[in-house]
C-alpha cells in the first residue's frame, strides 16, 4: 500500500477566547488574510462554546482538525492540519497553560488581558511557525527570566489597585497544578 504521508506536523492557529466569546489572544502560524481570520475566529467561537462538558476535545472543521480545551474561564483552541496528532496538540495547549502559570503564578484570564504582550512572548518561546520549539518548561522559563532581568526600567505596581470592576470569574486561576 502506498499512502502518501504528507508531513504537516504543525498548528495553523491558536486562539484564546473567553466563555463570553471575547477573543483574548490570536496567533496565526501561516499567512492568513484578515477576512479569513475573522471568519475562523467567528466559526471557532460558535463551534466550541456550545459544546457540552465532557464531550471529546476534537472536532473536524473543513479540512482542519480542531483541538480545544477549557481552562477556567478561557478556551484554548488550536487548528491542526490533517495529519497531525490530536493528543499531542492537546498537550501543547496544556504545556502553554503551564508555562503561563509558571510565569505569572496562578495565571488567570486577567493576567492575559493585562499582559497580553507577555502571553505572546511566552508563546514565542514555546512555538515557532506552529512547531514546538522547546518543550522543556525549565528552558522556556529561563529565557523569560533572562528577558526580565535584562530590562532596566522596572516600574512595580499592582494592577488590582486600578481595577474597580473585577468580575470574579476572570481572576480564577486557569489551572491548578
Amino acid at each position, binding site marked *: 500500500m502506498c499512502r502518501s504521508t504528507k508531513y504537516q506536523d504543525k498548528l495553523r492557529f491558536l486562539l484564546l477566547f473567553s466563555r463570553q466569546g471575547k477573543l483574548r489572544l490570536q496567533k496565526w502560524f501561516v499567512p492568513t488574510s484578515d477576512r479569513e481570520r475573522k471568519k475562523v475566529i467567528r466559526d471557532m467561537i460558535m463551534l466550541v462554546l456550545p459544546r457540552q462538558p465532557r464531550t*471529546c476535545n476534537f472536532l473536524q472543521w473543513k479540512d482542519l482538525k480542531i483541538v480545544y480545551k477549557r481552562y477556567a474561564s478561557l478556551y484554548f483552541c488550536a487548528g491542526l492540519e490533517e495529519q497531525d*496528532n490530536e493528543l499531542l496538540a492537546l*498537550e501543547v495547549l496544556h504545556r502553554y497553560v503551564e508555562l503561563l502559570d509558571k510565569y505569572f503564578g496562578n495565571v488567570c484570564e486577567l493576567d492575559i488581558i493585562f499582559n*497580553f504582550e507577555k502571553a505572546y512572548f511566552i508563546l514565542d518561546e514555546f512555538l515557532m511557525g506552529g512547531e514546538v520549539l522547546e518543550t*522543556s518548561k525549565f528552558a522556556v522559563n529561563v529565557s523569560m527570566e533572562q528577558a526580565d532581568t535584562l*530590562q532596566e*526600567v522596572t516600574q*512595580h505596581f499592582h494592577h488590582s489597585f486600578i481595577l474597580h470592576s473585577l468580575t470574579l470569574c476572570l481572576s480564577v486561576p486557569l489551572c491548578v497544578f
Partner: protein
Amino acid sequence: MPAVSKGDGMRGLAVFISDIRNCKSKEAEIKRINKELANIRSKFKGDKALDGYSKKKYVCKLLFIFLLGHDIDFGHMEAVNLLSSNKYTEKQIGYLFISVLVNSNSELIRLINNAIKNDLSSRNPTFMCLALHCIANVGSREMAEAFASEIPRILVAGDTMDSVKQSAALCLLRLYKTSPDLVLMGEWTSRVVHLLNDQHMGVVTAAISLITCLSQKNPDEFKTCVSLAVSRLSRIVSSASTDLQDYTYYFVPAPWLSCKLLRLLQCYPPPEDGAVKGRLVECLETILNKAQEPPKSKKVQHSNAKNAILFEAISLIIHYDSEPNLLVRACNQLGQFLQHRETNLRYLALESMCTLASSEFSHEAVKTHIETVINALKTERDVSVRQRAADLLYAMCDRSNAKQIVAEMLSYLETADYSIREEMVRVLKVAILAEKYAVDYSWYVDTILNLIRIAGDYVSEEVWYRVIQIVINRDDVQGYAAKTVFEALQAPACHENMVKVGGYILGEFGNLIAGDPRSSPLVQFNLLHSKFHLCSVPTRALLLSAYIKFINLFPETKATIQEVLRCDSQIRNSDVELQQRAVEYLKLSSIASTDVLATVLEEMPPFPERESSILAKLKKKKGPGAVSVTELEDSKRESSELNGAGERGPDQSVMAASNASTPSPSADLLGIRSAAPVSTAPAGAGSLLVDVFSEAGPTASSGAVNDDGFLRDLEQPPETSDPLLVEGSGDSDSAPPSEDPAPPLSEAEELLNKFVCKNNGVLFENQLLQIGIKSEYRQNLGRMYLFYGNKTSVQFASFTTTLNVQSKPVEPLVEGGAQIQQVLNIECLTDFSDAPLLNIKFRYGGALQNLTLKLPVTINKFFQPTEMASQDFFQRWKQLSQPQQEAQKIFKANHSMDTEVIKAKLLGLGMALLDNVDPNPENYVCAGVIQTKSQQVGCLLRLEPNAQAQMYRLTLRCSKDSVSKRLCELLAQQF
C-alpha cells in the same frame, strides 16, 4: 505574586486597558480608543523626542488597539525604531508589533531587514532569537531572499548557542515552506542530519521538524536520517522515565520528540538494513507493550502523552503495512480504545481504524469490531464521535457485511441531526455502498428508494440519476423497480425525488406491471397525476414526458391523458416550459401515427459504461468522511465490474444524440421543437447570477431548428453542475477565433443602464454590427432575443458569441445585410449585481472583431409589482429599518424632471407605483418583490424630487442589503 510586578509594568498601558474594560458600550470604547489614538499621534508627531520607554508604551497601546479589532495606520516607524534599541524589552515590543502588524510596505521591510541583520550578527543569543522569531513570524519572500543563505550557517556553526540553533532550525523550516527555491541545503545537508545526534534534546526536537520537511522533498539526500532516527527513538523508548529530566512530561520521556521521530520515519519505507529494522520493530513493540502497563500517573496529561506516542506508532505500522503481527496488535489495541471511558480515545480509535481497515492484513481484524462500532453509532452522545463511527462503518464495509451496514446507516440517517452537508455525504456513502456491494439489484433498488424516503431532501441529483441508469441498464430489475416505485408512490406524502424516479421508471417500464389490474395503466397514470399538483416545475415537466410515454405504451390511456394535456392549467400554464410541453405532446399524440410515436418514444438506450457519478461527486467533496484515494479506486473498479451504467444523467444522452451532426430523422419529420429547458440551480452556485441556456438560429426559420428530443426534462446533467462555465460553447464546428474575449467595452456599463427601465431596444451599434434586444420577464424567469445585424454587404465569418455563463453557438456565418437571432432563457437563481458578459467575435474581411458587452439583465427585471395601501406601506417601511437594509443616494438630475417621464421610468423598473401613499404628492413611492429561485426579496422605494435644486433623494429599503445597494446604484443613473 502579582502578575504585573514581574517584568516591566507599563502603568499607562494598564490604565488604558482597564479604561477600555470599563466602557459600558461599543460607542464608549470607540470614543476612548479614538482619544488614545489622537494622544499617541500627537506624541509621535511632537517636537519632543520620546524616550525609549514612552515609545515602547505607545507602540504597545497601538498593538492592543489593533488586537481589539481596530485598524492601525501609523506607528510602524516608531516600532521599527524600537528594533534598534539596546534595551531588550523595547526591542521585544518592536518585534512583536512588526510580527503582528507587518504590511508589505517595501520601504519598511528594508529597514526591518536591516535591524534583523544587525541582531543576527550581534552574537547576543537573545537578540538573535528575537530576530529569528521575527523572520519566522513574518516569513515573507523578501525576508527569505535576505536571510535564506545566512540561517543555515547559524544553524550548523559550532559556536552557536543551543537556543539559537533551535530557533534557526524552525525559522529555516518556515522559510523553506514559503520559498523552497531560496533555501538551498546542499553542503549543509549532512551536518543538518547529524543534529539528530545532538546532545541537547531541545535542539533535536526543533531540528527534526526541519529534517522531516526536507526529507519529504529530497528523500534520497536525507535517507541517512532513518538509522539515526531509529537509534534516537530506541534510546528514548528504553529510557527510564526520569532519565530525560525536564524533557520528561508527566512521566513520559520526551513525547514530542518521540512523535516527531515516528513521523519522520513515515516519510520512508521500512528500513532495508536488517539490524535497523529489528531495532525499530523492537521499539514499536515496546510502545505497544507500554500501553498495557498500569499508568504511572492518574493525570490525563500522562495518558495523553503516552497515547499520543502510541497512535503515532500505529500510524507508522499502518504506513509500513508489512508486519501482519504488528498490524493485528495495533488493531486489538484500538479495539480496546473503542470502549474506553475517555471520549477522546474512542474518537481517535475510530479514526485510526478507518485507515487500518484498508490494509489487507488488518481488514478482517477491524471487521470483528463491527458490533462495537454500530453501537457507537447508536449511543454516542457526542456527534463528532458518531460521525467517526459512521466513517469507519463505511471503511469496513465489504460484501459480507454490506447489507447489515447499509441497514444500520439507513436507520441512523433517520435519527441523525446533522448539518446538511454532512447529511449529503452520508447519503452518498449509503448509495455508493449499496451499489458497490449489490449482488441482487432488487436490494439496491429497495435501498435507494428507502434512502429517498428517509432523507429525500439530501438525495442529490446524482443519486437518483444513478438508480435510473442502473435500472435502465439491467433488464432483470426493471419489473421489480416498476413494482417498487408503484408501491412507494402509494404513500400519501412522498418526497418529490420519489415522484421523479417514479415518473421516469413508470414512463419507461410501466408496461411490465400493467398486467395486474391493481396497477393497470390508468391506475398508474392516476397515481402519478395525483402527485402532479404538489410538484415543482421541473418535476411536472418530467411527469408530462412520462405521460406522453404512457400514450405510447398504453394507447387506452390516450384519451384521458389528452384530456389532461388539453386543460387550461397545462396548455396555458404560465410557465413556458410546461406550456410548450403540453402543447407539443398534445399535438404529437394527435397527429403522429403509432409507428412514429413508437420510434420517437422508444425505450431509452442503455447508458455507456462509466464511473459512477456519485463517486465523482464524493471525490469532489472534501472534509469529514472524504474517502481516501485508494478506496475510491477500489470501488471504481468494483462498480464498473458490476454494472454498465454511465456517468451521465439520464437525460444527457438524449441531448448528446441531438447535438450530433445529423439531426434525428424522426424529429425532423415532425418538425417539433422543444424549448430549451430552463435549467435549475446547480449545487453550490453561490456566485452564479443567471444561468443561461440558449437556442439560436437564423430568424428565417424563426428559431425552429432545434431538435433537442423530448425527454429533456430531467434536471441538469451532472457535468454542468459546476457553477460557472466560462466559455460554455467550445464545441462549435467552425473553429472560433481563439483569442481571449476582449475586456468589456468602456461604455458597457452605460449601455447596460439604458436597459434598466426598458426591455427592448438597440443594445449596441457600430459601423459593422447592430445588436438589438427584445426581452420579457416573468417572476424569476426571462427570455431574451438577441438580434445580430450585419450592416455591411460582406459576410461575417466565424461568428461566435459567448456568455460568461452557458450558451449554445449561433450560426457561424452572417451574410451581408442579414440578421441572426439568438434566444436566451434566463433564470434568476439569487440576487446579483454584475451583469453577465456577452462576448462577440467574428471575422470581417480578414480582421478579427472582438467585443464584449454587458448583457442587460439587471436585478430589477425580476420585479413583481406589489400594490399596497398607505398604511401597509409604512408598516413595512418601518419593518425594514436596519441600517444595512437601506440604501440612499442624493444626486443631481441628469434627465428631465417631468412627472410623466419619471412615472414611465418607475413603471419600466418593474415595481408598482403607489398613489396616495406618500403624504407629499410630489414624491414617488413604489413597491415590488424580486423573484429569485432561492428567495424573494421585498423592496420599497421612495424618490423625492426637488425641482428647485434639480436634485433627487432616492431611498431603497429591501429585505436583503445587497439588493438595496445594487438597486440604488442602478436607479441613480436613470433620473
